């Protein structure tokens, strides 16, 4: 995997004579990094099952944006940023109803789950308010999480106890499970 680094602006001294190479490294590369920071946006386009009373990890199959190789088909549930830093982002998942009837049993929860050890953003909601025309919708949840640029990764996972298997909603783009991340700052 290519190694990417975060620019470290130089402290100038009076005898410094910035030639083209120095200007490129010290100014233009840094400005380019700021204008085009590492970012990704993953979607799920193929519906998946979410088992009752168990965590289901979202599988990403629609890679809209991946500037620095955070996605690997070998681990299609993960975003593994290759530039170290704090990343801010948002995520969301919608769950389809059970058939055409109201789906009011139990609760739903979605998490941005980091290295399979801790949550960096989550949402719980009871299902009692759902009607025959509404479903669990958790979009635009935000997080800010640290990544070491090599092994740290994040997943989106969902839990529900409706009593039956539920499916993710993918029929419309705005319903689809999504994960967006952008480099925020140095660790």
């Amino acid at each position, binding site marked *: 995997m290519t190694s990417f680094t975060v620019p470290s602006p130089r402290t100038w001294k*009076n005898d410094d004579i910035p030639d083209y190479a120095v200007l490129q490294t010290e100014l233009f590369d840094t400005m380019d990094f700021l204008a085009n920071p590492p970012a990704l946006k993953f979607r799920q386009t193929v519906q998946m099952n979410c088992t009752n009373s168990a965590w289901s990890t979202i599988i990403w199959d629609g890679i809209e944006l991946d500037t620095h190789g955070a996605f690997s088909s070998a681990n299609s549930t993960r975003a593994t940023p290759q530039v170290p830093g704090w990343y801010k982002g948002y995520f969301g998942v919608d769950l389809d109803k059970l058939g055409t009837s109201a789906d009011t049993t139990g609760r739903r929860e979605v998490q941005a789950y980091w290295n399979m050890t801790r949550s960096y953003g989550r949402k719980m909601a009871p299902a009692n308010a759902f009607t025959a025309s509404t479903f669990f919708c958790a979009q635009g949840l935000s997080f800010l999480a640290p990544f070491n640029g090599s092994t740290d990764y994040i997943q989106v996972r969902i839990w529900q106890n409706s009593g039956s298997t539920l499916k993710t909603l993918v029929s419309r783009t705005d319903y689809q499970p999504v994960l967006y991340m952008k480099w925020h700052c140095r660790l």
Partner: protein
Amino acid sequence: MRGTGATSATLSLSGVPTGQVVFALVCLSNNEPVTGPAFPAGWTVIATSQSYTLAWKVKAAETSVKATWTNAHQWVGHVFTYVGLDTTTPVEGAATAEYTTGSTSFVSPSVTPTNTNRWIVNAAFVFNAATRTFTPGAGLTERYDGTATVSPYPSFFWADTNAPVTQAAHTYTSTVSGSSNPVRVVSFALVPAVVRGSTTFNVDAQMDAKGHAGRFGSSTLSVDLDFEVAGVSMTPSAPLPVITTWQNGDDHDEDALNAQWRDPLLFLLKDTAPQIHAEFAGTAFNLTSPQAMPLDTVTMQRGDIYFVPGQSRIYIGVSGMYEGILQGGFALTTATTAYDFGTALYVNGVSRAICDDPICGDALSATQVFGGHFARVRLAAGDYVELVQYGHNWVSTHVKSTTSQDDRSFIKLWWAGV
């Protein structure tokens, strides 16, 4: 300073900055009939007995302080000053104890700070036919150990914890070099001021140059009083960079290049821009609505933004648009449909961003977490923000804060533009 056969002591306040809290004490060679040394008006007595008085004052124009008593005694006195203390209430929980059994070991009276940003001070006073020295107990750093020059010798020591202590009862066992009767001990907590934008406080123990300068090699002992949480890096305050348009003939020396190239880039990379990640990881407590959450743990703090551990307010040093992510954690002891929950960002005590629609507690019988809520607010230097959890129809004993890693309440806030 020290003296013999006197009925007063004058302590110099030279070197103490105006507006700074100063402590003064005088210890006598014998008991006075009723009360100890008297300090002039304006001084607040922390503790006193028949043989000593310890008092504080915010330094004004005076250059010295004179303590008086009735009968002639040997005396020893001193002043101490700590930078960064609250000038209204610099002392908390003062307590005294007296040992009359001639012991060489003494335990300071218990002090329980009300915040995790407090240091604790111990002072002990004796008089004896021989000189005495003290050995501070574990957890204490001795600042001064003084005695008079003529028998009977009044002696005292002053020590502090040299770091903030936990919000628990604290006692310290120190020793004195020989049997002394009585040993009088004072213990209290130092209360820091809330200083926006500061990264550290300093404590200066003003040494008596006349009598004891050689002991420390300097007339001033400076010790960093660091209120950071362990492991947290705080960078110096960084103002918003001002970018100018260059013209032919500009002298681009190192100051210009660093100011115009390096500093803005560091700011835009958020190395120096204000940012804080703080959370509440303490013991769960009953929530009332609205509840400004105390923040006791900081996992990142950069630039000119500040909070005092244990308090709810985050103070802003650089004006601009700020973005944040909030999480509110609630634990129910009784599930009911009557309750609902939400999280909000307050600015200067007023709700400015509701970050979650209230969610009914039905079917959520255990921990509820509403996290990952994004907020954007425009803030001015001097503003403060708070993470607030709120709800309706709560019975306070049924709704508690949460503390586990994934459930706890947190706020992450960063400068995001002008």
